[in-house]
């Protein structure tokens, strides 16, 4: 076995203190029974963090949830005086608001396309990095650079690159002799392509990083065994290595999936959702609803629909590896 179990347990052995009075779960090896100091467990340590999360995350969430059932707007006085409209906002969003439904579809489309590309490119690079070559560590650092840069700057940089007389069009003209270079931000498909290129450039490094650490931790014995049994390198990769990588792959998709479903900064800088609303993501639409059109209650309802959807999607993705994340064993 490799010494580095890559997926860390989020649960770390039997607890000390009062919880230790209960018999330890049989699955765990018995904890070394060092003469334990009879001192009170420091449960209060988590208190500040919990209080802050409660005040700054849960309370606003509840306010937003209440607001989503009203017709409140900033000009209409206090939130408490706003009239209660029940599920009207939600019904409106799902049934009549094609812009919302389209933004949801577009965000999901972006998620599928970008994550597939990032996964494929990241895995390809990571496999090459299993070999030894000169300058490997420098190249490793270089490939990680994009993910360190702030999204707003990435968005701005690609906005410059895709200007009609910018370097991308110049290269298109010079390399493949394209005569009518595109106006990237005036055509819906090209604007979408610009968003995808930007996202993939920005976040392929994260897939590369996560997958490489997963590949490095694949134990040698099963691979050797398969080799002795005469499996081809391709078979070894797809039948032995990839299945062992599954938890790592799921973690990568979950982390990136959560972020791309909230995609805002890069698109804000690149296209502002344009032309028209052809590159509008869910976050961008909700932002415009709330802060350009001041339809705060309506925007909050949209946000809750997104939250529920995200919770379901992410939970389904986590399902196959959840036990592993909690107990730290395969």
């Amino acid at each position, binding site marked *: 076995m490799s010494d580095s179990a890559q997926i860390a347990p989020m649960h*770390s052995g039997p607890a000390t203190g009062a919880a230790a009075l209960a018999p330890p779960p049989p699955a765990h090896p018995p904890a070394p029974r060092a003469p334990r100091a009879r001192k009170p467990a420091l449960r209060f340590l988590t208190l500040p963090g919990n209080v802050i999360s409660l005040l700054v995350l849960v309370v*606003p969430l509840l306010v937003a949830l209440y607001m989503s059932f009203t017709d409140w707007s900033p000009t209409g006085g206090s939130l408490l005086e706003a009239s209660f409209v029940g599920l009207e906002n939600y019904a409106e969003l799902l049934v009549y608001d094609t812009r919302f439904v389209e933004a949801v579809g577009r965000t999901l489309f972006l998620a599928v396309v970008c994550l597939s590309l990032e996964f494929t490119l990241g895995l390809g690079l990571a496999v090459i990095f299993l070999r030894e070559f000169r300058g490997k560590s420098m190249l490793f650092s270089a490939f990680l650079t994009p*993910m360190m840069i*702030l999204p707003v700057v990435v968005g701005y940089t690609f906005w410059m690159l895709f200007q009609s007389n910018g370097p991308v069009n110049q290269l298109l003209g010079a390399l493949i002799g394209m005569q009518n270079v595109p106006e990237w931000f005036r055509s819906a498909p090209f604007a979408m392509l610009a968003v995808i290129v930007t996202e993939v450039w920005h976040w392929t490094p994260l897939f590369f990083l996560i997958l490489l650490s997963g590949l490095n931790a694949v134990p040698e014995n099963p691979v050797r065994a398969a080799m002795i049994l005469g499996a081809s390198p391709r078979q070894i990769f797809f039948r032995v290595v990839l299945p062992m990588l599954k938890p790592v792959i799921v973690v990568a998709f979950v982390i990136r999936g959560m972020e791309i479903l909230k995609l805002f900064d890069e698109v804000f800088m690149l296209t502002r959702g344009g032309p028209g609303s052809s590159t509008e993501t869910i976050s961008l639409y909700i932002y415009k609803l709330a802060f350009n059109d001041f339809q705060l209650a309506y925007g909050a309802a949209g946000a809750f629909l997104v939250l529920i959807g995200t919770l379901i999607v992410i939970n389904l993705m986590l399902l196959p590896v959840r036990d592993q994340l909690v107990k730290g064993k395969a």
Partner: protein
Amino acid sequence: MGPKSLTLAQRLILLVALTVTMFPIFWIVMTALKPPTDWNAAPAVWLPSEPTLVNFATLFDPDAIKAYGLSGVSQPATPAILGSILASVSATALSIAIGLASAIGLSRYAKMTKWTPLMILSGRMFPPAAIAVPFVIMFSATRLIDTYAGLIAIYVAVTLPFSTWMLKSFVDDLPREIEQAAMLDGRSRLMAHVTVTIPLIKGGLFATTMFIFILNWSEFMFALVLSYSNISTIPVQLAKYVTATAGTLYGVQAALAVVAMIPLIVAGYAIQSHLARGMTFGAIKR
């Protein structure tokens, strides 16, 4: 999978990947060094005809660009740069302090359930555009809107899951016998943590601090909706420059972009072996 050397195709792939990775960074840095005549030239100018620092000077003194006959930016970026430093550094310090307490508490005194991973993640699932709405309302009522205190409070709350779980993964790596030995020496639990646990995770503490700083420094949307005139951060200022000047002051905007990314690249390289751990809430160790 023993080490093998690269095939020619693999060398080519690496070369292409390196070019694609580095080109946008090369372009933004070059643009920041270009004089105005090069900014939007057709065909595009790759290397500045006469490299200049005037774009950087314009960030601090909007009149500096007048030497080139342009009217310059509407406002200096100095307040935004100072604002970014103030908000990021304070929020990072608070997030680390609170996260460290939570990390030790969770690692040593709490029990996880199968729902724990989902609960950690759920805080990151809510679109910030939506959580920003109640913040605007609550902060307007408590006069926290357009103040650094308000912005810092949000940054702390938003980065707390990251700092807690990344630090927890470092505490989990320590055998608890070490602390128990210190307790047998007569120290209280708290003192055992202060004198034993924390010094032993110094490296992890540094990596987490840098990681949280990267998150805070990068944050855009909350700063965008919670700042009117009293506060500003670099991302907000960059967005304002692009809107206000209809994007024509490329060089100055690029200079601000470069100023924004330098600290992050330094911090990122310093902790690159821990980036995966930070991004995955400690689920992947390296």
